[in-house]
């Protein structure tokens, strides 16, 4: 015997499936929508449907895209010679926010994790090799996460995929977060920050 009317129950169940939303939050959102104007609810449902229908992965770089190519790949103003390799589309957003990079991207859609059985074949690594072979790229920046999986992926790409090509392969530097305290830095990060220190004068 359900407490609420059936449609409300169904909505609560569906909302409850979303990441980070428990039964209580789902209930709150459902009742908020129940009280809201019909037009607001309609806008939300339209947005969800439109996203699922229009958005897919870019044919070239596997970023999320509306249509065949993403906005970055179709922007001819960008430097087509520098390629930045990232794990997820959301990493592109993080790098774009810095404003320090004007090249193009390649999304692997994950990272190698032997303990989970994820190897190079499950990622867009073969596609990366094809791009490097076919496009006029002079530098590849490996921007995978600085954790064990990301570093394994970067090491694999550098030594097994990009070695035959004549280009510059770089890896994102590791160091201290701006605004943090030195004493809380872990040994590995601090060690790398020392290794990669800059000359001031």
């Amino acid at each position, binding site marked *: 015997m359900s407490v609420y009317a059936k449609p409300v129950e169904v909505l609560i169940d569906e909302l409850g499936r979303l*990441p*980070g939303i428990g039964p209580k939050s789902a209930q709150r959102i459902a009742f908020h929508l129940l009280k809201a104007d019909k037009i607001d609810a309609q806008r939300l449902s339209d947005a969800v449907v439109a996203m699922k229908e229009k958005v897919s992965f870019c044919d070239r770089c596997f970023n999320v895209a509306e249509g065949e190519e993403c906005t970055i790949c179709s922007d001819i103003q960008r430097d087509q010679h520098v390629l930045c390799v990232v794990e997820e589309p959301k990493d592109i957003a993080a790098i774009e926010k810095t404003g320090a990079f004007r090249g193009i991207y390649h999304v692997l859609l994950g990272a*190698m994790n*032997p*303990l*989970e*059985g*994820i*190897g*190079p074949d499950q990622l867009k690594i073969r596609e990366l090799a094809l791009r490097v072979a076919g496009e006029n790229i002079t530098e590849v920046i490996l921007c995978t996460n*600085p*954790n*064990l999986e990301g*570093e*394994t992926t970067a*090491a*694999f790409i550098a*030594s*097994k995929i990009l070695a035959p090509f004549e280009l510059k392969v770089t890896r994102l530097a590791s160091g201290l*977060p701006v605004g*943090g305290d030195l004493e*809380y*830095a*872990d*040994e*590995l*990060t601090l*060690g790398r920050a020392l290794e990669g220190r800059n000359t001031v004068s």
Partner: protein
Amino acid sequence: MALYRDEGVVLRTYKLGEADRIVVLYSRGRGKIRAVAKGVRRTRSKFGSRLEPGSIVQLQLYEGKNLDIVTQAERVVSLEAMRSDLDRYGRAAIILEVLDASAVEAESNPAMYKLLTGALRELDRDGNRLVVPAFVAKYLILEGVQPRVDACVRCDESTNLTTIQISEGGVLCRSCPGGEPLTDGARRALEQLLQGRVRHVLDTTPEVVAIELETLVAKLVEQHVERKLRSSSVLYEQLQ
């Protein structure tokens, strides 16, 4: 509900929620532990690189109902060489996966802990191909399932041992049918590893035998943990 301290090796991690991870540890005092490390995925996390698979750490944990919570982590040894060397990492992944597959929560085994940390340190030090076979040999002894390699498991014949039948737990002589081919060099090396002459084997075994042993021990350990090792099929074969 209390705080406790222990030393442990991170076997694997899972993502949890927005920025947390569940860390599976093999500890000296409590065997396998599953604990939550809050906020480790944030760039400014106090744990930083310490809670990644393969690290040996000194921990303070808060006992929870279901999962414990990592409150502090300090590095004992950083296995830095492993992070940039695919071969070493592939080997370490196998060791970690074997332990993860067979260790039981809240069952301490100091000898196993010593073996695990010893193998990881050795791997970090020189990355020898034979570290995994040496680890597996000792591991099978500790688990009480070491294969018999000095005489045929069916007829006790101790000469002409040419094949190994993993499901029967040992080698076979020429007159007993079945099994997979096994060279005498690999058989002898395995015998010495089981006798504990690890250093000798590490120093003297030729590369071909090492490769054969590597594949053989993967099968032996798969037979014991009753499942296929993911890491050996993913990274390992890629790199051969």
